[in-house]
């Protein structure tokens, strides 16, 4: 009977296990997790800290007991995998023990980046990614009288941290090296509106400046910025970004010295298989197809992780998998060809974000840093904005009218993938009925 290993039990890992079982895999599934709690969603941590969610609310798939019961898995919690021996499909654990599997899924996720600050996040300095991060911040907010905070990183996490702090009447300073809010999703013009809105709420915004170093003095932490200034606050929260946990694969010893291909994340093909047959990766630790650029990239979204996990699980469970593996992965590092046409394939994604904070909703689809003509329209439903070249839409920003975001994203993807010549009258009507300006519909349609 086959034996599979799943490293990491986040969204991708969970969905892979679920998918393996749903697709008829009856062998052993060993799950390795370096923590003792169930699958947590990093996106929920700020809601837990704000008090909108109870602690167990951060674990959307329920308890580990439920996981064992539902999917008959063998759990190895608090167990760190030191590396993966790809040629043997062998896991080497931190205690030196090892185990051989038929297939391995690396779903190790990503971790928050703590930049070289001269010190690890501790004391009055916080991160916001893991359950442990959330516990720490919640504790300090509950136990101390915090009146000021600096948040580094004008990202989706940074804004949610800012919101929760501001709602507790804490005066917040947001700091980012970039020239705008949400630099990876937001056009400059959209950012201007959002920044004005934020400063109107009393949030201090310091852009185009990075953190040089940090000094902690008792109940006070001073953040020295690259522009020479200094912000002294009660606490500092770092929301600078994440890095894929690729080290497991990076340390992998591969037959014929061909390592598992890694860029910023572990590179996978459309079946979520790495360049090494039998070793799969899914979720925030891997790079998959960005259909806008045609190359792979990390698009670390919950929905992507779920979909990638589902596909990885299904492909791992499939019998034809082994026999239809390509002999050698493409030398250029591009994703390999289909394992088997009957298997589900990850269709790829485009960067997309929806962020709701205060009473604002921001939607970003595509790359705001591409060039092209601008279209922007305001009406009582909100704002829609696009970068396009007449034929292709590169980026869309929406403010307010969140309900159309899925339809808009879907049509944008259809257009990029060449299925977008036709818009159903029903959808056109629904967009009009949802307050989308006619010119934007025509742009999306043509």
């Amino acid at each position: 009977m086959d034996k599979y290993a799943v490293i990491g039990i986040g969204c991708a890992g969970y969905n892979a296990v679920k998918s393996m079982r749903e697709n008829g895999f009856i062998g052993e599934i060993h799950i390795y997790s370096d923590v003792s709690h169930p699958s947590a969603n990093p996106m929920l941590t700020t809601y837990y800290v704000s008090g909108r969610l109870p602690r167990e609310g951060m674990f959307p798939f329920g308890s580990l007991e439920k996981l064992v019961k539902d999917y008959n898995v063998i759990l190895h919690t608090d167990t760190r995998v030191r590396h993966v021996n790809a040629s043997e499909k062998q896991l080497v654990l931190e205690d030196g023990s090892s185990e051989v599997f038929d297939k391995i899924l690396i779903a190790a996720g990503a971790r928050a980046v703590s930049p070289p600050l001269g010190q690890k996040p501790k004391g009055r300095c916080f991160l916001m990614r893991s359950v442990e991060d959330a516990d720490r911040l919640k504790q300090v907010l509950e136990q101390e009288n915090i009146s000021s905070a600096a948040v580094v990183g004008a990202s989706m996490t940074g804004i949610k941290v800012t919101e929760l702090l501001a709602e507790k009447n804490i005066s917040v300073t947001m700091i980012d090296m970039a020239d705008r809010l949400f630099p990876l999703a937001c056009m400059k013009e959209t950012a201007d509106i959002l920044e004005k809105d934020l400063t109107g709420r009393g949030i201090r915004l310091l852009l185009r400046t990075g953190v040089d170093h940090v000094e902690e003095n008792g109940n006070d932490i001073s953040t020295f910025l690259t522009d020479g200034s200094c912000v002294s606050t009660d606490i500092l929260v770092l929301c600078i970004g994440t890095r894929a946990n690729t080290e497991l694969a990076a340390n992998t010893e591969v037959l014929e010295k061909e390592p598992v291909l890694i860029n910023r994340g572990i590179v996978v093909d459309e079946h979520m298989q790495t360049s090494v047959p039998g070793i799969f990766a899914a979720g925030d630790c891997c790079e998959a197809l960005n259909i806008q650029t045609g190359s792979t990239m990390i698009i670390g979204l919950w929905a992507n992780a779920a979909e990638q996990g589902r596909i990885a699980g299904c492909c791992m469970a499939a019998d034809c998998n082994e026999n239809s593996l390509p002999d050698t992965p493409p030398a250029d590092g591009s994703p390999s060809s289909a394992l088997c046409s009957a298997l589900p394939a990850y269709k790829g994604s485009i960067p997309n974000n929806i962020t709701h904070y205060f009473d604002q909703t921001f939607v970003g689809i595509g790359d705001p840093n591409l060039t092209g003509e601008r279209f922007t329209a305001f009406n009582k439903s909100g704002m829609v904005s696009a970068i396009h070249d007449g034929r292709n839409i590169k980026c869309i920003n929406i403010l307010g009218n969140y309900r159309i975001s899925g339809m808009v994203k879907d049509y944008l993807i259809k257009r990029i993938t060449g299925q977008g010549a036709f818009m159903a009258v029903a959808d056109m009507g629904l967009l009009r009925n949802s307050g989308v300006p006619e010119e934007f519909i025509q742009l999306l349609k043509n």
Partner: protein
Amino acid sequence: MTEQELLLRAKLPGADTGIEIKHSVCDICTPGPQCGINAYIKDGEIVKIEGMPGFPGSGGVLCTKGAANRQYVYRKERIKTPLKRVGERGSRDFVPISWDEAYDIIEENLSNIRKQYGPESVVWFTGYTKWIRPWLRRLCHSFGGHNYMTESSTCFRAGRMANETIFGRDARGDVMGAPHLMVGWGSNPFINAYPMGRGFVKSKEAGTKIIIVDVRHTQAAEKLADLFLQPNIGTDAVLAHAIANIIIQNGWQDQEFIDSYVHGFDDYRKMVSQYDLETAEKITGVPARDIFTAADWIAHIKPTQIGTNNGIAHHTNGFNTHRAIMCLNLITGNYDKPGTTLPVYDTFCDMGSGFDTHEEEFMEETRTPKTLPQIGEERFPLWNLMTGDAQAMDLTRQLLEGTPYKLHALCAFGMNTMMFPETPLFRKALKTLDFMMATDLVWTDACSYADIVLPVCSSLERSEVKCYPGGFFYYTNPAIEPLYESRNDVEIMTELARRLCPEDKVLCSGYHECIKYMFREMTDEIEKGHETGLPVRSSHFRPYIPGTYLKNGPSTPSGKLELYSELIAGIDPSYGLDPLPSFYNADRKSCKNPVSADSGADNTCIDYNDISSPGCGTNSSGCGINSNLYNDCGSFTLMTGARLPHTIHSRGHKVPWLRSLRPDPMVDINPSDATRLGIAQEDRVRLFNDTGEISVLANVTEVANKGDLHLIHGYEEANATDLIPWDHTDPYSGFPGYKQVRVFIEKAD
């Protein structure tokens, strides 16, 4: 959620949830459909509404409005207690009083006014709902008066009168008789009368050809029409005459039927002969080939049913237009045969159900001889002659002018001031009254002008009899207790009768006894039906057998079906009423742009002529009706009252659920006009003319023809009738020209 919570959320009836189903009836719209309701009741409160399965006509479904009955009943603006005015007339300054005190005040005022100025100086008005009409009509008569008037002064009655001048009776289409061609003229039965819409759909499925004629691109045009004609507003009669002309020119008329049953064919033929295809196309904007196809089908497909709806009569030439359309039935022999147009025999409350009651006797037996003309009689003699009622559209004038006599009191049961064209003038007129009482479910503008306001309940809080086609009657029981201190309208009339005309023992006996009086041959059935609270098919039901009416001779003056109305011929010629259904232009003769009037620019609309005038049809810049006119002078033809599915008149506007389907008043405008004027979807626009001005949002849609605007009425913040002059009326019926008003539109800042 727990299982119990899920069941409660689902509102499943049963012991678990404590929800029980009670039967009632929806009374939001006109009596036509009025669908059976299953009200889900928990702890005496409605928690959900559903259609009553198997109900006659509705078959268990509801329309948009009916589905909102729960919120309609529990509206925030419900009047809770009797109220007495303490502030200025027109203000909302009222204090609660007891029912007894309210009755005392009404009795004292009406008795004194009757004594001092005579019973004619008291006006009895009823709007919605219509279930109370027989009672109010009798109350007016028993009181000694004749000035009973209804909302039907502007609704369906003109169409009925038009039918009566032609056929001697009102007319209806025989859908059950499997017509092979149906002509829905100004008919969009999907909206506001869905059972009729389903009838059309069923016929279409069975292979019936359908022609839809409408100035709007409606649901019916889209879903039903094998041929869709979209004439310019107000030119339908020209279209009908052109069709008749083609039929007669080609000898396609049913000469045998005409010879046997029709009066006035030669005069009619002469009249329609001036409408050749070219002229008709020019005036109506309908392509000549489509007019010809319509004539071809109407002449050759048998049986054909040509019918219209109320909107046709809502032009100042509406009465003749309605006649012009219905006359096509005569020349093609499509009358009183299966699948054609049939005579109507009323049973109760303007509904023909196939059995007889003594409603007419009930309403009329206490009427005394007139000593003074009824309201409207001097301006609209045909109306008073044919309906026996006062014409509400002359109320504004008589209140303000006091001629031929002064009016002193108004008893208004469900009055909507916005029904009255040039509403600000009507409000001014109401201020001349010595005494006014108003009843309503919710607070309305009219209440503000009353001295006493009485709260009435909804159909779900009372008991009433409704009759339906196919021999059905339905005697409801209350689904819930009347809310607050509200009572039902007939209870109020009964009490007024006891105080003002106690000698009328029948009226004083209350609703149930009056019903037994009117339905006296079937009291056992009535009692039993009341007990079960379910619709009953009466054993007295006798389906109409087509042909019976013609065989016995139509009840017109000539004893024939009249293309030339002898009744109208009998009206004093000084009124200028044509016994033939002749076309005349219903547009206002001119309109000055009130804004740029001082600029010296000539912005007066072309004063177009009726088509017999020289130059017509040749002057490319000026003649023709409506079409191109707006290009010349910048004005548009506004049609008010085109229905939206979620409201009837003003009744849905303040029901939040219904209002949410279109939160803002919107005017439909054609995309090409909108582009020309720089107006985008949902832009705020001003509509104005020399009568008034309102502000609405633009709805840019091909529903509206170029040069036309469409706006539903009844919004307090954008009252369409503010734009209609008070005297913009049809001389035959007295009906206002709701559907054809000249206005200007511009983008607001």
